[in-house]
């Protein structure tokens, strides 16, 4: 039987070479970032031995940059590091809210939002926040980098759009203007250490009291997190008044297709997604005005 292996390449080319060689040899590999999913999966009884490819030794995956030119969060950057970055805190409070909800202090010391995204759980907290913030995936391939919007990256439960031999280097964003702010809210039965029953990420831009741009994304209420363009349409051009918020909430509810389980029924989740949408917009609105 094959046994587990571990490599920690120091460059993008080396990672790609390892991935490519194992495809050629028909061997399994698994990329490792913070390991908070990988190590749990490795404990499952039927987990097949494979070569673990640690991507934390690359300069590119350790990038955490916030400047006028844009924001870059490398695939090896932990939630804890993100939270300690003052400028990131200011620029993307909603994304940090999501990262801060992922697991305990201990988990956040290792876990990355890129790993959360690649793992592609329907309830992954960072995903709606990344979509709302208009994140772009920076993907390393044998033919150079390619880019993809976060909303196109997750294609099913536990499935992402990476082809064999590719890996995620990081996510990037345009630097939000001062009047553009995001927010993320999730609903869980407990206040800490629980999995989202519903998650909503939003971002609004406000000028002269009018919403000039908006993005709304919902999580845990469909197989993948979704961008809700109808919700944005309801907000743009409005004063973010109650009627606009209600219409946005209704749009979220309409696009959702949740399941019933012990954490909540379909009806319940649909009701909550509309409520959370309204609340998240109110928070983002307030943040946009405070700047």
């Amino acid at each position: 039987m094959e046994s587990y292996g571990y490599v920690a390449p120091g460059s993008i080319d080396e990672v790609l070479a390892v991935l490519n060689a194992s495809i050629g040899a028909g061997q399994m590999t698994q990329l490792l970032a913070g390991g908070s999913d990988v190590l749990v999966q490795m404990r499952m009884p039927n987990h097949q031995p494979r070569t673990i490819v640690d991507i934390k030794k690359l300069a590119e995956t350790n990038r955490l940059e916030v400047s006028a030119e844009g924001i870059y969060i490398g695939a090896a950057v932990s939630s804890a590091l993100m939270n300690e970055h003052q400028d990131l805190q200011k620029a993307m409070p909603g994304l940090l809210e999501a990262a801060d909800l992922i697991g305990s202090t201990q988990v956040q010391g290792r876990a990355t939002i890129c790993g959360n995204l690649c793992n592609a759980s329907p309830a992954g907290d960072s995903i709606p926040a990344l979509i709302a913030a208009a994140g772009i995936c920076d993907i390393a391939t044998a033919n150079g980098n390619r880019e993809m919007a976060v909303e196109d990256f997750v294609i099913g439960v536990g499935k992402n759009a990476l082809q064999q031999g590719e890996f995620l280097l990081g996510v990037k964003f345009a630097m939000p203007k001062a009047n553009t702010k995001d927010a993320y809210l999730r609903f869980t039965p407990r206040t800490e250490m629980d999995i989202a029953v519903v998650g909503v990420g939003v971002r609004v831009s406000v000028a002269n009291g009018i919403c000039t741009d908006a993005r709304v994304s919902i999580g845990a209420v469909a197989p993948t997190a979704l961008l809700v363009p109808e919700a944005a349409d309801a907000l743009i051009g409005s004063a973010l008044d109650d009627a606009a918020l209600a219409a946005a909430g209704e749009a979220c509810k309409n696009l959702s297709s949740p399941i019933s389980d012990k954490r909540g029924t379909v009806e319940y989740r649909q009701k909550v997604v509309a409520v959370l949408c309204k609340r998240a917009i109110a928070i983002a609105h307030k943040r946009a005005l405070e700047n």
Partner: protein
Amino acid sequence: MARLHVESTINGEAQEFLCDASQSLLDVLRDELGLTGTKEGCGTGDCGACSVLVDGRLVCSCLMLGVEASGAEIETIEGIAGEEGLHPLQNAFLENAALQCGICTPGFIVASKALLEKHPNPDESTIRYWLAGNLCRCTGYDKIIRAVQDAAAKMSHPA
């Protein structure tokens, strides 16, 4: 598969060990290095009994591979007491009866140490959120919170 050779610093001392690629840092500490103060409650990141500091950062040693410790500085419960005896947190846990069976205690003490390094005077809610990843089935948490507050007070105003 050949075992992997790893060099790291554990509780201030250079350490070399061999491990399998699939072994967690927790397995290495307990089974390869005999550092059994770090406990395994769940093995899946939920309970915090395996908390250690890696390059000063609080993590679950069950969520990290042993080989990832390569080049890192690891601090475990065995490294908390100093030359002069127990750490103020250890004393505070004893004085406040903040443990019963004790299996969660090493994790709570390591996690609390990281907390007090970052927030020397945390309020109750900061303590509770910081320690939300540490589970205790015996004490009901209140005594643990009081012990941490007590240690924080003693550390900022040593007698």
